[in-house]
């Protein structure tokens, strides 16, 4: 790849001495010495006197050979591990450290696994008071960012590598200059962060240098929550939503389970209210008003699709309906009410929807919550606050937490100062403003007006100054810092490794600029902590680092608040003057991408290749639009649908269902998607992107994900990196300050050109198959309806006469039944589809834990992605307003596994504990197992994805012209069979991110979910050690968490011993909602699903008698079998399920089950 060569060339011009050890390690003589199995000195083993010397030699060679770089050493500062004291450091044994991943508005408390000095896996810290241990996809993928070979690895001046000392000198010069000028002319542009230390150092700096100016900018405005609450209540506060305590939730374009910054936390709280206690069933109800079809909309019981620019009108109507009720017409609200009532009326269906929703909110006053999204204007947020205040939710389901008042100006003000040449020194802390600043500012050019620019950045990207300094930013896993989680709890950011490329933290740079004597981040953070914890208490500090949070530091909510009604009124009136999309007016919505966020994860291959949970697109973004909008544009994405040429179902069904099933919404040609490129223009600003139809989106809305379209041009090195460059299109050039979230008045034209997209799911509908099983809550709880046992009732009926046969008519006895009698455990998994929101965290966790490779866009197009977890997404119902359902699909670990008996070489077999094992070493790759797997969860290594660059997969190693680092591939292979044809510098980094407990698979080998067998085995060994002579080798429930289970913020996944009736998984499996996918094949999967229950309101205009998937299933001629949900005899009813787990049979009577509360039983 040309880029890689230019990058390499650039690197080689870099400084010599700070990588000197590295260079030493590269010297051929040294390499040879290291590579020899026993370096010279091996004879010393025999000599007891010199043995110690030998051990020193060996450990030195280990560090150099195994890690290949000088930077990768254990941190110098004393850090305290989470569970094990450092004195027992054992090579090969992983250690865990508590830390936190800072986000824009908080932090995710994490536990990081460290293998021999390198962080490999990030997990949530479930001991944190406000976390259940769940994380989101970004947190899981952040480990890969640390080892991004394209991150900034040098101090650069004018985009040329220089020594670190030169860079430090430059900082010093600016600091001295600023000190002399009292800060005049020093402008700092920072990204958003909630770091007490950064705030403290900033205040120090501003105090010392009063003339300095502080600006903050984030391309995605998560700060709106704070700003709006501060505006509404007149105090510096931010809302904290206790969704778990809400019975009714109204989301105003708030994708709180998806794109909101605190999604991991909010998913957990929301999911708590969705878990159904079998004894006292109860669940929350979610109304969503939104423009895009988001995960929140998919989770919603009722969804109203309106353009983003019209959401505040819907919000106002709801508020008007609530406030006109005398009960809620509290003093002071009259003004708001009048403003809202005068607001105008919505179309009929909408108004019915709105009034029924408002009624529901009123019925649940004090137990409901209205939540507005980051993509909404302040007016919507203010209306939400007004509603929450009127309904008495504030202090109950919504807390207002005090936050530091905002300091600093906007990027617009900074640009003005730049243009006026007021800026002597510009310091950019993080972010990538040259790429993502509002287009009208032309920040990239404005930057050049600054006298001196220092930019602290993670990549040498668009913002790396052409004239000025780019300083490598340290990753959070290699830096000291602190943060506050959303509830205000103080958390440490601890390094797991010394900075790999001598990166610097923001606080260090700030301290250096301020001319502070102490600028080591460790000292700065400690000082802040001592300030907050009340004195220099070393034990408290150790405790803080050990636990990963400072107990009791959560902010107490502000209790005495009053809504400032005049502000709400003013905002509503102002917003009313803004145009809304509809009719001829169309809007464009800018939203943070589910994979690359605002662009910060663009070079992260794991994320790039993770399918978007809604569109299932990888490696690209697209212009999303509704079917009707696409139709109006004349796009042929819908052609198949309109002509009804594609799929027809065999059995006739009602027209509504058949309509939608007549085709794909985005038609495929020979299995590939080549949608047309459309041009979006707002005034003179234009962008182009491929059109993609999403059923259920609001009409007249075009949605574009931010963060793509990165590229390096020839003269500069700016861009995302070798992974992200060239993916998608850039939406930022269309986005200006007057329309940062959405803009009405966009003009869309077709270009006639096409662009290929890599979509992992070609068929978006479920075709009436009972894969996902859903019912409505009212039916589920109504014993008369027959839906209490709906999940098993949807099993395929057995042929007559089968029931009388032994073992439910299975012709052959399952050999596992005998083995199981002697096994200590029987592993199984239950997935609660009622909690799962489809956030992708599990998929990324699995990728990180199991060394799952990425394959690149071209291979994804061929369907060869390797992800062990697939998130199936189905639309059902009317194509314009469908319901969406998700199902995570992993290896089901069938007891009668169809893959096993067809493997000719015994490469996939069963163990006595019920695991369907995959023996990579034995696999020859006939792929028969995958063909015979009804769930299609096996993935095949078509190429050597781990050892060859993704753009070089089709090149044969015999090609003598194919050289990497000057060596022919076969020569490289001969010298080092593991390395393959990847650039040495990349290889060294990529090797570090791998989990050493999981083998890396070569080409020609099948792989699949193992239930994280490495974790199972580790726990079993630990239990055996613990058991000693007692012989109690049964691993207690909750000890083992699979990677997906650990990461799941919704706690939707339970894993454990199904022979233990008290285990969480057994209790879940004992619930009536438990079912097997493809039950009729009698594969007896160990992974079962808990059917989904929707909770619609019968008064709503879009009330569905049954979920669309259920209706579709019935439309295919199926009927719910009559089941006796509470009949525990081996009656004919129960025998449908082939339930071999006797836990099911024995314990249905006992009162247990997933409680609606926190899943703290593990």
């Amino acid at each position: 790849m040309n880029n890689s060569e230019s990058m390499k060339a650039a690197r080689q011009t870099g400084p010599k001495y700070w990588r000197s050890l590295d260079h030493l390690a590269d010297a051929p003589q040294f390499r040879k010495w290291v590579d020899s199995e026993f370096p010279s000195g091996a004879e010393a083993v025999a000599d007891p006197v010199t043995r110690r010397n030998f051990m020193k030699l060996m450990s030195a060679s280990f560090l150099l050979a195994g890690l290949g770089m000088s930077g990768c050493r254990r941190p110098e500062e004393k850090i305290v591990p989470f569970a094990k004291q450092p004195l027992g450091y054992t090579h090969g044994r992983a250690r865990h450290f508590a830390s936190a991943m800072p986000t824009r508005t908080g932090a995710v408390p994490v536990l990081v696994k460290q293998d021999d000095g390198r962080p490999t896996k990030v997990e949530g810290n479930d001991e944190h008071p406000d976390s259940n241990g769940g994380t989101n996809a970004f947190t899981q993928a952040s480990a890969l960012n640390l080892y991004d070979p394209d991150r900034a690895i040098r101090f650069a001046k004018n985009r040329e590598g220089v020594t670190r000392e030169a860079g430090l000198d430059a900082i010093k010069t600016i600091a001295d200059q600023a000190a002399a000028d009292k800060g005049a002319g020093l402008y700092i542009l920072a990204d958003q962060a909630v770091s007490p230390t950064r705030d403290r150092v900033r205040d120090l700096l501003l105090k010392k240098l009063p003339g300095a100016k502080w600006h903050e900018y984030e391309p995605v405005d998560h700060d709106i929550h704070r700003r709006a609450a501060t505006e509404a209540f007149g105090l510096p506060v931010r809302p904290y939503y206790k969704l778990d305590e809400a019975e009714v939730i109204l989301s105003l374009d708030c994708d709180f389970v998806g794109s909101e910054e605190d999604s991991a936390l909010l998913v957990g709280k929301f999911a708590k209210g969705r878990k159904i206690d079998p004894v006292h069933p109860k669940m929350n109800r979610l109304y969503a008003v939104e423009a895009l079809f988001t995960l929140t909309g998919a989770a919603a019981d009722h969804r109203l699709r309106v353009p983003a620019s019209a959401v505040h009108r819907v919000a106002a109507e709801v508020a008007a309906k609530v406030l006109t009720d005398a009960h809620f017409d509290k003093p002071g609200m009259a003004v708001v009410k009048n403003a809202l009532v005068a607001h105008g009326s919505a179309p009929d269906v909408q108004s019915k929807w709105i009034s029924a929703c408002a009624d529901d909110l009123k019925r649940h006053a004090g137990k409901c919550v209205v939540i507005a999204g980051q993509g909404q204007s302040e007016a919507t947020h203010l209306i939400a606050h007004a509603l929450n205040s009127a309904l008495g939710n504030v202090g109950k389901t919504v807390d207002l937490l005090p936050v530091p008042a905002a300091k600093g100006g906007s990027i617009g003000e900074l640009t003005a100062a730049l243009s006026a040449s007021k800026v002597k020194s510009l310091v950019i802390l993080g972010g990538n403003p040259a790429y993502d600043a509002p287009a009208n500012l032309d920040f990239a050019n404005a930057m050049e007006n600054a006298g001196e620019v220092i930019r602290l950045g993670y990549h040498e990207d668009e913002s790396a100054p052409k004239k000025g300094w780019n300083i490598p930013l340290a990753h959070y896993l290699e830096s000291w810092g602190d943060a506050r989680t959303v509830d205000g709890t103080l958390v440490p950011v601890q390094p797991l490794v010394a900075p790999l490329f001598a990166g610097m933290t923001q606080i260090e740079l700030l301290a250096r600029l301020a001319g502070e004597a102490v600028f080591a981040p460790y000292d700065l953070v400690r000082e802040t902590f001592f300030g907050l914890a009340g004195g220099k208490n070393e034990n408290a500090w150790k405790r803080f680092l050990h636990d990963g949070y400072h107990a009791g530091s959560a902010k107490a909510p502000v209790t005495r608040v009053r809504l400032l009604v005049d502000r709400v009124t003013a905002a509503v009136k102002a917003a009313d003057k803004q145009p809304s999309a509809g009719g001829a007016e169309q809007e464009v919505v800018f939203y943070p991408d589910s994979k690359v966020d605002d662009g910060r994860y663009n070079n992260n291959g794991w994320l790039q290749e993770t399918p978007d949970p809604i569109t299932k697109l990888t490696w690209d973004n697209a212009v999303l639009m509704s079917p009707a909008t696409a139709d109006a544009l004349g796009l042929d994405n819908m052609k198949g649908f309109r002509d009804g040429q594609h799929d027809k179902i065999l059995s006739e069904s009602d027209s509504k269902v058949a309509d939608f099933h007549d085709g794909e919404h985005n038609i495929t040609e020979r299995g590939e998607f080549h949608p047309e490129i459309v041009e979006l223009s707002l005034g003179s600003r234009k962008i182009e992107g491929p059109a993609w139809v999403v059923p259920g989106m609001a009409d007249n809305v075009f949605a574009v994900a931010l963060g793509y379209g990165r590229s390096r041009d020839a003269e500069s090195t700016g861009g995302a990196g070798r992974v992200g460059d060239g993916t998608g299109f850039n939406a930022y050039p269309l986005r200006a300050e007057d329309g940062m979230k959405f803009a009405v008045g966009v003009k869309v034209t077709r270009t006639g050109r096409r662009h290929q997209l890599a979509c992992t799911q070609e068929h978006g509908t479920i075709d009436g198959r009972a894969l996902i099983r859903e019912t409505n809550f009212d039916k589920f709880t109504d014993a008369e309806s027959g839906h209490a046992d709906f999940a098993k009732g949807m099993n395929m009926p057995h042929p007559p006469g089968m029931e009388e046969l032994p073992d439910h008519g299975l012709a052959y006895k399952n050999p596992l039944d005998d083995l199981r009698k002697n096994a200590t455990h029987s592993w199984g998994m239950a997935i609660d589809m009622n909690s799962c929101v489809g956030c992708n965290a599990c998929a990324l966790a699995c990728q990180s834990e199991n060394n799952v490779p990425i394959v690149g866009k071209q291979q994804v197009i061929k369907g060869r992605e390797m992800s062990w977890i697939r998130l199936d997404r189905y639309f059902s119902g009317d194509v314009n307003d469908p319901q969406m359902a998700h199902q995570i699909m992993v290896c089901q670990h069938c007891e009668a596994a169809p893959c096993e008996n067809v493997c000719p070489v015994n490469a996939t077999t069963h163990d006595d504990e019920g695991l369907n094992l995959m023996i990579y070493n034995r696999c020859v790759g006939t792929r028969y197992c995958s063909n015979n797997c009804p769930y299609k969860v096996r993935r095949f290594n078509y190429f050597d994805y781990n050892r060859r660059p993704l753009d070089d997969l089709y090149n044969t190693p015999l090609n003598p012209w194919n050289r990497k680092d000057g060596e022919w591939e076969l020569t490289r292979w001969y010298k080092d069979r593991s390395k393959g044809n990847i650039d040495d510098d990349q290889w060294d980094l990529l090797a570090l991110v791998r989990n050493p407990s999981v083998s890396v698979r070569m080409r020609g080998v099948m792989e699949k979910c193992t239930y994280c067998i490495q974790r199972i085995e580790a726990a079993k060994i630990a239990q055996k050690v613990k058991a000693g002579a007692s012989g109690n080798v049964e691993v207690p429930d909750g000890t083992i968490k699979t990677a997906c289970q650990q990461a799941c913020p919704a706690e939707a996944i339970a894993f454990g011993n199904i022979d233990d009736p008290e285990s969480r998984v057994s209790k879940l499996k004992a619930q009536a909602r438990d079912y097997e996918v493809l039950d009729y094949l009698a594969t007896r999967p160990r992974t079962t699903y808990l059917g989904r229950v929707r909770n619609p309101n019968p008064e709503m205009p879009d009330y569905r008698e049954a979920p669309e998937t259920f209706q579709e299933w019935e439309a295919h001629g199926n009927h719910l079998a009559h089941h006796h949900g509470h009949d525990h005899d081996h009656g004919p009813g129960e025998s449908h399920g082939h339930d071999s787990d006797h836990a099911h049979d024995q314990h249905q009577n006992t009162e247990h089950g997933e409680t609606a509360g926190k899943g703290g039983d593990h």
Partner: protein
Amino acid sequence: MSEHAPAIKLEAPPVELERPRLVSNNRGLGEISDQICDVIERPTPLWWKICMLPALTLLSLLGAMVVYLVTVGVGVWGNQHPVMWGWAIINFVWWIGIGHAGTLISAILFLLRQKWRTSINRASEAMTIFAVMCAGVYPLIHVGRIWYGWWLFPIPNSNGIWPQFRSPLMWDVFAVSTYFTVSVLFWYMGLIPDLAVMRDRCKKFFGKFAYGLFSLGWSGSNRHWRNYEKAYLILAGLSTPLVLSVHSIVSLDFAVSQLPGWHTTIFPPYFVAGAVFSGFGMVLTLLIPLRSVCKLQDIITVRHIELCCKVTLTTGCIVGYAYFMEVFIAWYSGSSFEKYAFWNRAFGPYWWGYWAMIGCNVVVPQFFWFKKIRTNMWIVFFLSILVNVGMWFERFVIVVTTLAREFIPANWGYFNPSPVDIMTYLGTFGLFFTMFLLFLRFLPMIAICEVKAVTPQADPHHPLGGAEEGGHH
């Protein structure tokens, strides 16, 4: 008929009811030898050179593709998730199927005393062997790690791991290797007397030596003939069940699995019928040009071609019945997955494959009801090619359409072959035709002794036969 009671006497059958002679134009025994050996003994004909050139080119293409595949990975083919078997398995089954005609002709027709087989059995058997070789390439190279392919064989090893005998792929290994071994033995057995003829006629030293070596000292003595006939009968008996078993077992690759469209009990007989059908299609494709170019119209007569057409028609009808029965059972089963699978075959994204299959395998053979068509070599040649195309599509429909869309709609996909797939397939034609052309040039393509045995001249009681005329062979 007279008014008297019919006399008890045997009348000679009317001339027009006599079975047509198997060798036309009353060729004598010597002429037969000359005609057949002439192909070998003449200087290398131009047509042979012209055919050999593309055959060798394609063979080298096969070599190149295999090297590329082995060094890079199975990904160079089009197969993907969920269609993990693509052209490799289609072509494997297709070539194996083609092989069946040879064994059927040489073994089953032998046991059934169908004397017309003698003119075509040698070439058909050669076709079988070469087709099985082409087929055998695929299971070897289609695995992900070819260098461990030997793990499929039950070789005692220090790991103590045996193959998994429950896997149909394992059965394939045994079935195909047994089939190949027995076919080669049977073919070679039949060749021995003719090799001796070649030895006796050959004038060049090397040829004489080679033919002599392989004719195993055949002297044509009574004792030799007696042993030969016994061995031939035994091998015919051994081969007969193999005709049925090989393709039955290949069909079990599919039938044993879970998938709708694969999991059917009709597969073994349906596959065997299809194999014979395609095999005879290939026999026709090969023999029609061959008899003209080698001037063997007297030995491979129009009647032979007609008989092959009739077999093709019969098996084509069986195959058509199987197609119908599959659809019927899918409906009758009541399983929505089965129903969808067959609906999808006919009207899904691969509808063209299904209708190509129906057209070529069910409609095309119906033309063979007509004698005019059966006796027109050009039309028969063209139709025989269609039969082979149809049978390729049958395997395509089974392998690809089933895998592309089975249980869970979310992982439905669409298979596209890659250029490497196509070139590897073309390459196997190179292998086949190279082998076949070498066979034509160096071995008697018709069983000389057997053909002679079915001529009237060989019958001592026939007016033309026996000692009266004498032969000069």
